[in-house]
């Protein structure tokens, strides 16, 4: 059962609403979102939530006047017509003016939409219940207090304007995560995320979480400081995810990102800025890291290589900034990112490490300084001391202060790339977070600043 409107039906509805208006400039946006979420807390199903939400946004502007807007969630035609007529009258009474609509300069060629999975759509009904037992029982059998979540998401978006924009698309996503707590309040976490429910493997998630939790018993405190660290994908993803906004050209030209060179007073385009083994890219049609091929204004989004083998290759000129400086093609800064992988497995990284830490996941990651890209957060869900090529013991969680731009100059080894689950990450946006495809990394000089007993 498809839980949301098809993109064709959403487009048809948007055009129908557009037809209710008689003023010069009108835009209609439709979001239909269905989320199904099951949560385990204290070893039991705590709550499961199913439902959908429709939000219709209408913005109108009479010639030479400021715009007015309205949002509502009712599909009743009488209500819709009445609302739009009211808005029209309000628009014609408005004083003042607004900036020109950027929609006027839109390129209207779109890449295909590849981020809908029928399997995820079908799974929204009752598949979540079926995976809970295989996900949680291995944790209970091992004696861990367990929390878990299983979420599915389907979303249809349509945007039409009287200036000729007419675009719609649909997407799905799914994420599973499980945490087991041990004596001494150590914890082991594992998770997966994918557009396609069918590729998620609850058994493997449970196996990794049990392994992490078993190793996490009775963690000991270690001194903070700069250390060699092996970061699994769940630890790398929140760092790379925060790098996306740095590619914003307007912010960079204003000197507000690490990609601005204060000496030349220009962006670092063409400069090698991180390890030459690293390429960062985004592509709406990426198999694991894809996204809708347009933004909420209906502007097409393009594949881009932001960092090409360590060198800053391009910046994101949003449509307004691109128009103001005469740059083409415009693009948004990437919400989803792919970082190229390498050949080294996590086990090989551990085996090659004489003295360091293995970090399974980072949490509560927040910006400490946008200008340098400095981030802070804490280890969570498994942090272990490595001695002489093997994991020796669990350690208590630590707070870190690092810039991923610096970190990517300190690479020892790179693992294969795959999409990482982010779990609870409010500072990264709303759930689900756009895909972040990353490898595990072994890095030098990862800066831990204090113990984080509170985690």
């Amino acid at each position, binding site marked *: 059962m498809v839980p949301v409107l098809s993109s064709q039906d959403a487009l048809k509805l948007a055009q129908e609403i557009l037809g209710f208006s008689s003023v010069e400039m009108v835009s209609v946006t439709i979001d239909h979102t269905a989320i199904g979420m099951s949560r385990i807390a204290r070893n039991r*199903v705590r709550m499961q939530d*199913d*439902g959908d939400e429709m939000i219709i946004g209408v913005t109108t502007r009479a010639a030479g006047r400021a715009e*007015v807007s309205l949002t509502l969630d009712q599909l009743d035609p009488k209500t819709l017509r009445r609302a739009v007529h009211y*808005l029209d009258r309000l628009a014609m009474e408005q004083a003042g003016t607004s900036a020109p609509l950027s929609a006027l300069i839109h390129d209207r060629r779109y890449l295909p939409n590849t981020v809908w999975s029928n399997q995820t759509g079908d799974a929204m009904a009752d598949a979540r*219940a079926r995976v*809970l037992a295989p996900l949680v029982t291995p944790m209970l059998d091992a004696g861990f207090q367990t929390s878990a979540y299983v979420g599915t998401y389907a979303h249809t978006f349509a945007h039409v304007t009287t200036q000729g924009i007419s675009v719609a698309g649909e997407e799905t996503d799914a994420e599973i995560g499980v945490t087991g707590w041990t004596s001494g*309040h150590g914890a082991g976490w594992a998770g997966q995320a994918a557009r396609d429910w069918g590729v998620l493997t609850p058994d493997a998630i449970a196996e990794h979480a049990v392994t992490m939790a078993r190793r996490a018993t009775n963690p000991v405190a270690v001194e903070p400081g700069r250390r060699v660290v092996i970061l699994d994908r769940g630890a790398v993803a929140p760092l790379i995810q925060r790098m996306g906004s740095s590619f914003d050209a307007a912010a960079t030209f204003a000197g507000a990102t690490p990609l601005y060179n204060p000496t030349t007073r220009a962006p670092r385009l063409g400069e090698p800025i991180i390890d030459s083994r690293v390429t960062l890219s985004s592509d709406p049609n990426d198999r694991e890291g894809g996204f809708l091929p347009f933004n909420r204004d209906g502007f097409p989004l393009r594949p881009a290589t932001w960092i090409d083998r360590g060198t800053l290759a391009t910046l994101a000129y949003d449509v307004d900034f691109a128009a103001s400086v005469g740059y083409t093609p415009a693009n948004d800064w990437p919400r989803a990112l792919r970082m190229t992988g390498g050949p080294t497995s996590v086990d090989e990284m551990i085996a090659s490490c004489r003295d360091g830490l293995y970090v399974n996941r980072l949490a509560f990651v927040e910006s400490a300084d946008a200008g340098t890209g400095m981030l802070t957060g804490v280890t969570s869900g498994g942090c272990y001391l490595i001695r002489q090529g093997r994991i020796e013991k669990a350690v208590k969680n630590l707070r870190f202060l690092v810039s991923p731009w610096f970190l990517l100059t300190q690479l020892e080894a790179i693992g294969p790339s795959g999409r990482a689950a982010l779990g*609870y990450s409010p500072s990264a946006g709303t759930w689900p977070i756009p895909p972040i495809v990353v490898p595990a990394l072994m890095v030098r000089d990862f800066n831990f600043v204090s113990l984080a007993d509170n985690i």
Partner: protein
Amino acid sequence: MRASARRRPPGEWLPDALGAPDLRALAVVAMDAARTQGADFADIRIGVIRSVDVDPFPMAATVRLSASFGIRAWRNGTWSFAHGNVLTVDAVASAARQAVQRAIAYAKVNGALSAHDGAVASPPPRSIPTVATGVWAVPVAIDPFAVPLDDYQRVLGSFVDLWVAPGIRRNAHATGYTMAWRAETRVYASMAGTLVTQDFMRGGVGVQSTAGLPGASDRVVLHRPELGNVPAGFEVVLDPNLPTVLQRLREEAVRWRELPLRPYSSVGRVPVLLDGRTTAGVIGATINRALDGDRISGFEADAGGESFLVPDGDAGDTSPTTFSPLLDMVVDRTLPSPAAARWDDDGVLLEPYAVMERGRIVNVHSTCDTEPLIAQSHLLRRVVTPSSGAAVATTPASIPTGSCGHIHVRPAATETDLDDLIREIRHGFLVINGNVDATPGLTGGEISGRLDGVILEVQRGTAVARTPLRLQFRTLPMFQHDILTLGSATTLGTEPVTVMKGMPWRGITTWVTAPAILCKDVDMIA
């Protein structure tokens, strides 16, 4: 005031059919459907939200309408929740049946899990509130949705005129005014027979008072969020005292902006005076989170986190943490609180309750779900009550979660204003309108955080300079040992504190009202 005939009021287009009687009828239909389907217990929140936001330059208006419902069904000790925004008999009845069917299905999952840890299949039964019926409404003299937009613009213009009036000192460069209201009719019904209707109305003038050049990094920016969240109608912006309040805020911004900006390179621990709004923000982000029953009970363990009051993660072994004996805290959602309500979203009749008395925790924010888990903890040692009334659903379609609504820190009885407290500082800092960046604790430690905002250096009882410093605090030392003095009622400030809870996470806002506090030994960082 005379209504203009030209510019239309924002409520004109709203449909007529979605009134309280219709919502109550749909709620009864849903409860009947849940009962027929075999629910042990079910409840529904169903409502209509209208809002209007008006900006003066250019005159832009946004109006919103949202109608939605959320149904919880309880079967064999397991919850299920279904929500939607199609408000028809068929839609709500279908959602109620679906919620019960899924509760039955997930109860089987819980049964299977119990075979693996040897515990009982279900968590303790939820507590049952007293059955309630009735209607409650925020008193409204002038319906803001019936006021023509011309009048919005006229009032906003009068506020802007205050800022550009002759005699304003230098550096008074900008302010921002908006007007907004949010009205909601919400019906709560349960299978136990509760059926209550509440009409909320909240709004006013949003103000940001800024002194300093536009775009400059050293501007002084002051907010008064409670002025834009008054539980009343359009009459609040016609209050003859309001221009004086706005003028004082402007003068305060100018006063602090006129102090020189000086770098300060020393680090160490110093006395720090937090104004009322800053204190409210700190307490909302730290102690109040720890009092959240969802955290204490472990329901938020893999999301928003746990509580430092439960050091080993076991809700039955809450630690006897005590704070400064100067601290008394009460939760009170009676008018004129911005969170004013008569019943919570479990249908519990709201009454003020103390959470801290002379630094000792005497209660926490519990719901009907969390109360049985935490009432017997070492922290409280009391019998199970229905709940403290902390169930809050941010919209009718949201799952109710724990949030106290509005917590008040009792000010000092002795008259002590901000200037009196400044005079007590030989060398230290004053934080005005501080922004709090706190790391939430998950288990047994402290919450640490940073403060920035308007931070002033104080020497021999006088604020002498602005500094670009940030301050770092650690919650337990600050609130256990470091408080020297509290300000009196004249120093009270109110701040909304939003925390993200759940998967998917949603923002839940708690209002905090607190006096200024003078602390010793707060870390300075560059």
